[in-house]
């Protein structure tokens, strides 16, 4: 399978702060989830791949074009990228259609009829066709988030980069978005705190912490890390990473020694993530 994007020893420094440690990754077609706590370097990694932030060291390629090379190469790479930042502040006077039309022009859709067809296509995809002529200021938070995603979908990019795309979406909209992303061509790289989105959607998961890749593998491999380490019982496990009372009154414990009467239960991606975060050193098989 050919790589959509590669990072070769890419690091990002902000003054003395290292936001991203030297990182080497190869992204192939499929949906890749990026997990990590706030400040882990997820957004930095996404912005660097989206060509909006220059790396301090290393080399990046997108669709075979060296992003870290010449300006021309970077422009070539941008033709293959769709990017939704974590926060999109819209000019409030614009309509949904005018906003997408503007972005489509910036994506070099020069022919007006074709461009307008593409705008209508992405509006349909995110279920905003009925609001095409509504001003952005009249849209709800979820609708604005879908509009931000729609602009990234213009032109069916080879590399779709979405920073927390499901924030502000209701369960139905999230399900619709999952369906949409699961059919997207090329590589979809999504950063999210919603572990259930990772479980439902991703072929591969990358966990970042303190600017380093702590895990890079399949969702099944991440879950395997937590197998046999999550328990449900009348009291909390000793030394558990996290515990909480469930709706049945039982205590669910992630990690630790199970208490008397506790039974082992199937771990979720969130359990595995919590265990991965807590484990020192990081488990064998994880890349750094």
């Amino acid at each position, binding site marked *: 399978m050919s790589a959509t994007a590669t990072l070769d020893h890419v690091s990002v420094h902000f003054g003395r702060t290292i936001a991203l440690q030297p990182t080497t990754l190869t992204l192939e077609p499929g949906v890749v989830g990026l997990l990590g706590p706030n400040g882990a370097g997820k957004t930095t990694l996404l912005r660097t791949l989206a060509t909006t932030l220059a790396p301090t060291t290393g080399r990046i390629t997108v669709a075979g074009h060296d992003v870290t090379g010449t300006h021309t190469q970077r422009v070539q790479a941008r033709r293959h990228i769709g990017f939704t930042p974590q926060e999109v502040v819209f000019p409030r006077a614009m309509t949904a259609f005018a906003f997408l039309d503007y972005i489509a022009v910036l994506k070099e859709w020069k022919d007006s*009829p074709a461009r307008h*067809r593409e705008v209508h296509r992405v509006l349909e995809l995110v279920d905003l066709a009925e609001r*095409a002529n509504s001003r952005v200021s009249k849209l709800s938070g979820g609708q604005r988030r879908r509009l931000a995603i729609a602009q990234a979908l213009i032109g069916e990019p080879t590399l779709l980069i979405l920073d927390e795309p499901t924030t502000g979406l209701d369960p139905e909209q999230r399900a619709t978005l999952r369906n949409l992303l699961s059919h997207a061509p090329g590589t979809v790289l999504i950063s999210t705190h919603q572990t259930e989105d990772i479980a439902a959607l991703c072929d591969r998961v990358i966990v970042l912490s303190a600017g380093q890749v702590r895990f890079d593998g399949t969702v099944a491999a991440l879950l395997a890390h937590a197998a046999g380490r999550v328990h449900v019982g009348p009291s909390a496990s000793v030394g558990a990473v996290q515990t909480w009372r469930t709706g049945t009154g039982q205590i669910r414990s992630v990690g630790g020694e199970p208490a008397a009467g506790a039974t082992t239960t199937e771990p979720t991606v969130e359990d595995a993530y919590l265990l991965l975060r807590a484990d020192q050193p990081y488990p064998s098989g994880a890349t750094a």
Partner: protein
Amino acid sequence: MSWHVTAPLWEAYTAGSLNTSAQASIEVHVTSCATCRVAARTYAADVHPLWDSIHHTVSQPRLPALLRVLRRWKVPERDLAVLGASDSLALSWAVAVGGALTAVIATAVAGARQEFTFLLLVPLVQVVAVMAAFAATDVLHELVTATPVNKVRVALLRAAAALSIAVPSTAAIGLLVPNLDGLAFAWALPALGLVLAALVLHTWCAPWTAAGITAAGWTALVAAGHSHLGEAGVQAGAACVAVALAAFYVVRTRTLQWGGVR
């Protein structure tokens, strides 16, 4: 319905021999006339281009009046989409006309400091008008950066559209204000340099910050010796600075930062 598309009209339409307005008239008519929609199936070998064209016509949002004027001047649709982004051009043109009027009034009441006031304000009207054109869409900076569009072209398009109103407005002032003599148009080359300086600064900071820094620098220069602005050497110097800033702007957008022009 008072009329229907006749057979010769359909034949001319399908042959593509009608002028643009006649073609558009048929397309709009067909959207509201069931008889002609049926006839379209008869005359058009392939109706899809017709429907595509109709869809394009009816789905395209109506452009603001200012942009419809530009469309008549054959400005391409894609450029109109850029200029129309968030009414940025309307704001810019309002700032240009308002700034020109403000400059007239301030010059008129300045008394002995008439020349100083005129030369201080008029170039800054150009800077503020251009930066106003960028301000409305600045919030989209990161999104725009990730697109392949030629950012220099977009920036120059915005600047040119802003200056198309700002320059004539302020040039008229030079003709209206008495006793300026050789200084009436001495602002033009320095204004070009100032606009380019603001564009360069805008690659680092927000539009209004860039305008503020430029205004502060210009105020210091004018205070130091506004009476010399009309001299040939000073004008030549301003032209050289403008050329250097233009070159730096292009280089800056291509090499110094990935973000490039906002």
